[in-house]
């Protein structure tokens, strides 16, 4: 299903950014175990979270993933080999020197963290060497960021809306970003495995 060009682009990606909302836990449960322990590139994930308590996502996924699962600190370098989760009540951004940054600016698309905020800052840093994945969700966060990644020459993957628990987010991303790949979760897991596996 994957053309040679897209495979090359996947293999040339230097970071993978993922956004998910309603139905996120189940979808990520199918995907994140595909990231190996010595992953070639960093994986950064925004899930919409309630603002008033700490995120439990690192604990939830740590035992299910071979890669290290954690929340970044301000200014921490974006190193490969980890799955990085955005904390609750902050926007997570990437800086040009490839470190993490945070903001407490107003919610975007009613969300903080917002997927668009991560995706747009990631597009600035990685341009065409970036792959993003938009998963299940019940609003349109991520669509704008994905379209910016697409404009900069990055690779946009969207979960097939028919296979998503909530279709609106994938539908919005498809309408706005013209993704190269629309796929089911098992297919996306294979793409993640390919993108993140350590060089032989």
């Amino acid at each position, binding site marked *: 299903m994957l053309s040679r060009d897209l495979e090359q682009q996947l293999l040339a990606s230097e970071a993978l950014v993922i956004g998910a909302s309603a139905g996120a836990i189940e979808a990520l449960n199918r995907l994140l175990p595909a990231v190996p322990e010595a992953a070639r590139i960093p994986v950064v994930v925004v899930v919409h979270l309630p603002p*008033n308590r700490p995120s439990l996502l690192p604990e939830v996924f740590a035992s299910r993933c071979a890669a290290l699962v954690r*929340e*970044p*600190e*301000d*200014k*921490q370098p974006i190193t490969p080999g980890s799955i990085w989760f955005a*904390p609750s*009540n*902050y926007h997570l*951004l*990437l*800086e*040009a020197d490839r470190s993490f*940054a*945070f*903001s*407490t*600016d*107003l919610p975007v698309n009613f969300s903080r963290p917002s997927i668009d*905020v991560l995706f*747009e*800052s990631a597009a*600035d840093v990685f341009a065409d060497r970036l792959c993003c994945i938009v998963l299940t969700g019940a609003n349109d966060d991520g669509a704008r960021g994905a379209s910016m990644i697409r404009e900069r020459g990055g690779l946009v993957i969207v979960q097939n809306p028919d296979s998503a628990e909530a279709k609106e987010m994938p539908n919005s991303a498809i309408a706005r970003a013209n993704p190269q790949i629309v796929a089911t979760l098992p297919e996306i897991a294979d793409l993640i495995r390919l993108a993140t596996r350590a060089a032989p």
Partner: protein
Amino acid sequence: MPEDIEIRLLLDAIYLRYHYDFRSYSAASIKRRLAAAKTQLNAETLSALQERVLREPQVFTRLLQFLTVGVSDMFRDPSFFRVLREKVVPELRTYPSIRIWIAGCSTGEELYSFAILLREEGLLDRTTLYATDINPEALRKAEQGLYPIDRLQAFTENHQLSGSKCSLSEYYTAAYGSAAFDRTLRKNVVFSDHSLATDSVFAEVQLVSCRNVLIYFDRSLQDRALGLMKDSLCRRGFLGLGSKESLMFSAHVGSFRDFVASERWFQRC
């Protein structure tokens, strides 16, 4: 990218014209804030905005609101305030008079959280609070202590979780859609214009709280700001940071020890 060049030029222009220094702010956040300002101020490009900012001080005043105002909740991260109440306050009690610096106080939510907690612990009367910010408009709001009533539910929940035995409603009166906080809470507050980027130390204090301000700075400016806090603090004085902020990547890591590191409380060595 032309936009990145425009950002640099605009920040230089602001510094030269108004002496506000945003040149060492975190680039990713500045970019978003300027994009929002550009749209709201109806500028075609950042270069066009720069032209207006240089010639019209009132446009700069409006731009400043985009560049600086961070909205916070009262008692944001209640567990931080629980540690203040249970672990830090007992140490502060040993001082006959207490001085506290709320650095980057913005519109005052953090300041009133401290004042309320100190009153509940019986320390407010012998405490001086320095509330500083670079944005005069934000300082004015902090001094007013008026907040939209729809924010009070979140404030109230946080206040309860911080370990208070009282109701937050004891500290404000509601009228015309706003909650007006008790003016005696700010009796011992000194509101002052102060920049962590360009100003120097102004007092010796036993506690500095600077939360979710450093995240907007790059590493060099973080070091400058943390250096000011270090030099302001007496020995064994306390530093409270935001929940994602740490000393880990700072030049001043050796000047502090962990107090309750999980809640971002540090102590001056």
